[in-house]
Each structure stands twice: as structure tokens, then as C-alpha cells.
């Protein structure tokens, strides 16, 4: 049942925690976070909810912010692998990217104009058509391999990374730029508030007094490559994608299955395909959004299936980056494995007896060789990747 590991030769990421991976990891290990009400857009909602915006990042006018995030992270990943457009061109390279906002066919100014009985400018719509994240990356690097944009809500980029691994093992291509991107905008902000799952203070994953999530934005990309491609191009493996599992709750559009059955199946499949036993897992990067439901279900499953394994949520540092979450957190997981330590689970103070376990409260040494990163999505999709040290 276990599958061949796939090398991860380069990584890049951008979020509120940092413009690139090294800066992000420094900031995480220092325990820094600065959620604040949004500055890039306004809302007439009476409550101001904190979010994690990548405030210094400006997208070019011809691209959606999501597409621009995707490009930024992809460039870092390719450079990290020691490649450029020319050397990448000698390989057959695919793209597999997760997103939510990046594929939505609506834009508020355009819709307001239409709704008001006008004939609004078509430029926003044309920008959407140009900004599919996989297309944007394929165009930038002149890639000739398969391309796919995964839109499984919050698990999109975990799925994208897992799928990319399967393409390489199946020999569909030599390498894949895999990851996810999502921007924070008014529509998303208003939508999550309407579901009453956002916290009006900085989020507190797994804490007894948690009230909900904070939204974030950003992107992360991983350059996955086959063994022959690694050798031919002089790349080195930073870490490995060992396994991937995914299963549905088949329960409810927004609430997770209370017994966590889908998550359990996904973890089992990930461990089995990774050829990894629970005892050898160094740590888990949990989904840990800070909502009462998610953290209760997820925490209990972790307690049951991986008792004693340290875990954390990094959403206390980045917010919930939706379609980018899986990739950002996979990249953090790989970086933590390299360093042999994980940051504190930001926002956590008081254990919740209803969960029965708690995340790490300080920077923790994790000497093991593999780790899990998991994401639970609307629609009941649960996806888990297992990463291993090089």
C-alpha cells in the first residue's frame, strides 16, 4: 500500500507571516503575529474582525491578487530549486494549484454595476478569465506539462500537492509546481462573518475559549520532481512527499462529522501510503482554524489516532488562508522537519477538557523524520499529507 516518495526540490511562500519562507519561519519561531481589521477593503458590518493581510504586497493591475500571489511563491520555489525558466524548460513540468477565490467568476464592482441596471466595464471579468492560477504559472515559465486548478475549498492545496505526487509517480511529467493561492477580499470576509464562525479577536486554535477563525491570504508552492529529473537538473531534495490521504464526511455542507470519520480515513490512508506508523510521526500541523467545531473534532481524532504526538496550528500566525492553507502549512511542515523544531501554537492558552489534548505552547524540538499536515474543508473533504526529511 505504501507508495514511492517524491522529492520536494524547492519551496516558496508568502503570507502575513512573511514575504518568503525564511522570513516566515523566523517570524513563526519568534511567536510574532499581528492580526488587525482589514486595511485593503472596508465593510459596513458593525463589528471589525481581525484578519491576516499581506499588507505590503501589491498585485499588478492586469492580474487578480490571487494569481499574483501564486506567481510570487512559484518564483521563490523555482529559484530555491536552483532553476530558472530556461532550465525548467528542459523538463516536462506540470502545474497543480489549489484556490477558492482564484476561480470565482464574480467581482463586486462588476455585479453592482449590472444589478444597478448599468452596463459595467468588462475589464474585471476579463481579468478573472486571465488569472486562473495554473494558467498564470504555466504561462510565466512556459510549462508544457499537465495543468490543474483544484477547488476543494479549504483542502484545495493539500489535494493539489497530493495529486502532483501521483502525477510524478505515474510518469505523467518530470516535475510539478504544486501549491495554492488565495487572496482576502470583501466578499470572502462578509461570507465567513455571515456563517458566524469568525472570531472578533485574534484566533485561539484549540483553546477552551476559542470563538472562531480569522481569515488570511497568501500562497505557497512546492517544486516536486522525479528522481531522474533531480539528477538531470542538479537539484537536491529538501524533503519528500511520502504519502497522501483524502476522504469525505458525506455529512453536511459546512459542519464536520462529529465523530471525525472522514479525517480518520484520510489520516489512515496518508500513513499507509507513506509507509509510516503513528509512532514515527514527529508532529502534526493541524488544520486548527479556531472554530469550536473544527478544533473539537480534529483534536479528538488526533488524541485518538496519534496520542502523544506534538501538534500545532500555524493559523494563529497566518490566519485561515483557505485555498492556500494546505500548501502554506505543508511548506511550514517541511521547513520545521528540516530544522527539527516547531513553533508554539499561537493563540493557545487554556486547555479545553472537551478536546482532551492540547497543542504545543512553546518552541518544541521534534527529532523525528516525518510529519503530517492536515486540512478539513467545507463540503466535508478531509485531506492529509505526510512529509519526510531528506
Amino acid at each position, binding site marked *: 500500500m505504501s507508495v514511492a516518495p517524491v522529492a520536494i526540490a524547492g519551496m516558496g511562500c508568502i503570507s502575513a507571516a512573511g514575504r518568503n519562507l525564511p522570513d516566515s519561519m523566523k517570524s513563526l519561531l519568534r511567536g510574532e503575529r499581528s492580526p488587525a481589521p482589514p486595511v485593503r477593503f472596508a465593510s459596513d458590518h458593525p463589528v471589525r474582525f481581525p484578519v491576516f493581510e499581506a499588507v505590503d504586497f501589491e498585485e499588478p493591475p492586469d492580474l487578480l491578487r490571487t494569481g499574483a500571489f501564486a506567481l510570487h511563491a512559484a518564483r521563490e520555489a523555482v529559484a530555491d530549486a536552483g532553476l530558472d525558466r530556461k532550465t525548467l524548460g528542459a523538463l516536462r513540468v506540470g502545474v497543480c494549484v489549489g484556490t477558492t477565490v482564484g476561480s470565482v467568476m464574480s467581482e463586486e464592482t462588476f455585479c453592482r454595476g449590472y444589478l444597478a441596471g*448599468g452596463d459595467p466595464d468588462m475589464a474585471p471579468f476579463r481579468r478573472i478569465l486571465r488569472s486562473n492560477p495554473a494558467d498564470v504559472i504555466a504561462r510565466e515559465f512556459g*510549462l508544457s506539462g499537465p495543468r*490543474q486548478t*483544484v477547488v476543494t475549498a479549504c483542502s484545495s492545496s493539500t489535494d493539489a500537492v497530493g495529486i502532483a505526487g501521483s*502525477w510524478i509517480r*505515474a510518469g505523467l511529467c518530470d516535475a510539478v509546481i504544486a501549491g495554492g493561492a488565495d487572496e482576502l477580499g470583501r466578499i470572502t470576509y462578509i461570507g465567513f462573518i*455571515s456563517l458566524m464562525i469568525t472570531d472578533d479577536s485574534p484566533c485561539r486554535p484549540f483553546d477552551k475559549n476559542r470563538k472562531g477563525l480569522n481569515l488570511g491570504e497568501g500562497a505557497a508552492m512546492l517544486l516536486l520532481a522525479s528522481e531522474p529529473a533531480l539528477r538531470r537538473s542538479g537539484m537536491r531534495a529538501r524533503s519528500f512527499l511520502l504519502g497522501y490521504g483524502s476522504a469525505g464526511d*458525506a455529512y453536511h455542507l459546512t459542519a464536520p462529522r462529529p465523530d471525525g470519520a472522514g479525517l480518520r480515513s484520510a489520516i489512515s490512508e496518508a500513513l499507509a501510503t507513506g509507509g509510516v506508523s503513528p509512532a514515527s510521526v514527529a508532529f502534526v500541523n493541524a488544520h486548527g482554524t479556531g472554530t469550536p467545531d473544527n478544533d473539537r473534532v480534529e483534536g479528538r481524532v488526533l488524541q485518538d489516532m496519534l496520542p502523544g504526538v506534538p501538534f500545532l496550528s500555524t493559523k494563529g500566525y497566518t490566519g485561515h488562508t483557505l485555498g492556500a492553507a494546505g500548501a502554506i502549512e505543508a511548506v511550514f511542515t517541511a521547513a520545521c522537519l528540516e530544522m527539527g523544531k516547531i513553533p508554539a501554537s499561537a493563540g493557545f492558552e487554556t486547555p479545553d477538557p472537551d478536546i482532551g489534548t492540547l497543542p504545543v505552547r512553546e518552541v518544541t524540538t521534534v527529532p523525528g523524520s516525518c510529519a503530517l499536515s492536515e486540512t478539513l474543508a467545507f463540503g466535508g473533504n478531509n485531506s492529509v499529507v505526510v512529509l519526510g526529511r531528506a
Partner: protein
Amino acid sequence: MSGTGRIVIEGVGAVGGFGCGIADLSRALADGDVRPGSLALSPGSGPVEFAAFRADTSRLKEFVPARDLRRIDHFSRLALLGSHLALADAGLPESERHRLGVIVASGYGATGITYAFLKSFINDGDICASPTYFANSVHNSAAAHISILLGARGPSLTVSQFDLSVPSALLCVREWLLEGRVDRVLFGAVEELSDLIGYAWYRLRGASCSPMTPLWTEKETAIPAEGAAFFLFSRAEEARAGYCTLETAIVGSPANAGFPLPGSGLLLLGADGRRETGRRYAPLAENARIACYSPLYGSMPAGPAFDLAAAALILKGGRIFPSPGGASLDFPATVPAGGEPVGTDRISCLALADDGAFGLTTLGKLPDSQ
């Protein structure tokens, strides 16, 4: 995984401008003619009505009680109907659904409910945004509703890659089965022609005044459409009867050497009357026998899934359907009116994106023993 490594299509379900179900689709393919309905809008410049292929989901109540549909919008209803039709066509019992993967492809996603969500706060303020509309406006809502109503607890995937959504998703259909992750995959494509998409279409392309003639590639004749085409895929060892095999699924951009078009056999073109993509098909189809059935279901990113359904029906039935409108100067080797025996074991379906990327899916005839 032992076995032949062959993948089979066991069931097909489709709903669109041609009607609902395989019988309606077969009739449309045999007749070679489907009259489109229309879409009426009231933009700023004044009311318009133009040709559009609309799909009717009223048969969904044969499969799902009305009570379970109360919060489900048109996009997800199309997908649910396509799914149930495919499962019924395959005769898959409920007891065999637990190792069922669900994969949905859509170019535009749930634009109707997304627009309804925007209206809910544009009209009444941010605090009145509808959470139900928001929850349903995520792209994977159709796959979620399918999984929930079928009780399918295998993996679920939704893919959105505009014109290549279908061939891209097929990569995963194939790998999931060959890797043994699931026993069967319910795969389908769904597209909704919401007012929002219809309006954008009208602004970007104008209204079509003539029937679709995609093989006359210098003309703009696309008619916007909606619908759903779903398939039940399984490994050959586990399949009961079936339509055909899935031989290969390829997505990419032509590198230097051009790309692997089949030398002989039948090629179904995903040309759909849009001029900017239509003209890309001509240089590729020089040596192959051609058919193009998009005039029967219309222009939409999910279109290639209907081409797949047509190919499956041809391989099962043994006769090629006539290509609507016959041959053009660009495609002299088009299948003539009147149909003819297949004469080949393979049919390839080609979809092109406007930046030159392509998707090529090849289906094969089932061995006589199956």
C-alpha cells in the same frame, strides 16, 4: 494492483439543451439537430433575448425527495441529476457506494448562487449577507451535495481549468483507479448558464443569430449553454457491462514537436463556434476523420464531457453519428451525413484552450468478451 490496468465507463448520464438522459442524447446525436432555447436579460442597454441551450432539472425529483433539495441551487441540481442518471444507467447498487470517489469539473462554477450571495448584501447591507448562499457558492458545493446525498465517503475532487477542466480532471479519474484508492469514480462536468455568465457572454461576444457551425472556423457562431454529463468509471475487473475503455488522458502544451494526435481513427473536436479557439483546430486535424457534436449541446467549458458521452455511445453502438452541418473546407474528412460504421477501435476527443494548451482523451472499444 493486479489486473489489466484497464478502466471502463460503466454508466453515462447527461442533461442539457437536448433533453435529459442517454436516450435523449442518442436521439439528438442521430438526428443531428437540436433547437436551442433562449436567455432573456435586462442589462443597462435594454432588454435582450438570445439563443442559449438551457437544461431542465425537473426529473431530479425522480431520484431525490423535494425536501432534500430545498437549499440546493441550479448548478448543484444539474450535477445531482447527471450523477443519478449515470448511476442508474450503470445499475450500481447503493451497497457498493462506499468506496466511490467523486470528481466534478466545472469551468465557471456556481455563478448563479454566487451572484445571489452578492445581491443579498448589495441590496441590504453587509450584515444581511446570506450564509446559505455563501456556503453554496464554493466551487465544490456540487461535489459536496453529491457525496452527502449518495453517502459517498471516498475522496472528492473538484477541478476548474476553464476549457481544459474535463481532460484535466480525467487525469485524476485514471490515477485514482490505477492506484487503487477507490473502486469506482463518479466523474462529471457541470456548467450553469446563470444570468451573470449570460450577460458576460453577451457583452464579450454578442448574440448568436445562426445555428452553430464550429467547423467553419473563421466565423463566430458559438451559442452559450448549460448542462451536466456524468460517468461511472471502474476498473475492468470490477465492471459489469460497459460502454468503452478509457485508454489515455493527456493534458499539456505542445512543446517543440507538436503533440501526439492519433494517426488514424476518429477524432472528436471540442470546437464550439468560438472563433479564437476554432481556428486552432484546423491545422491539427489534417489527417484524421473528424466529427464535432457541439452544435447539439452548445458552447461551455464542460462541453468536452458531452464529447466523451458521444464517443462512449459510438463505441457501444458501433455506428458513428453524423457530424452536424457536414464537412467544411478546413475539415474535408468530416464524417458525412447518414452515419457509418465505426471502423476503428479508438476515438479521441480533443479540447484546446485559447493559449494553445490541449487535452486529449482516448476511449477504446470494449473487448467482445465484456
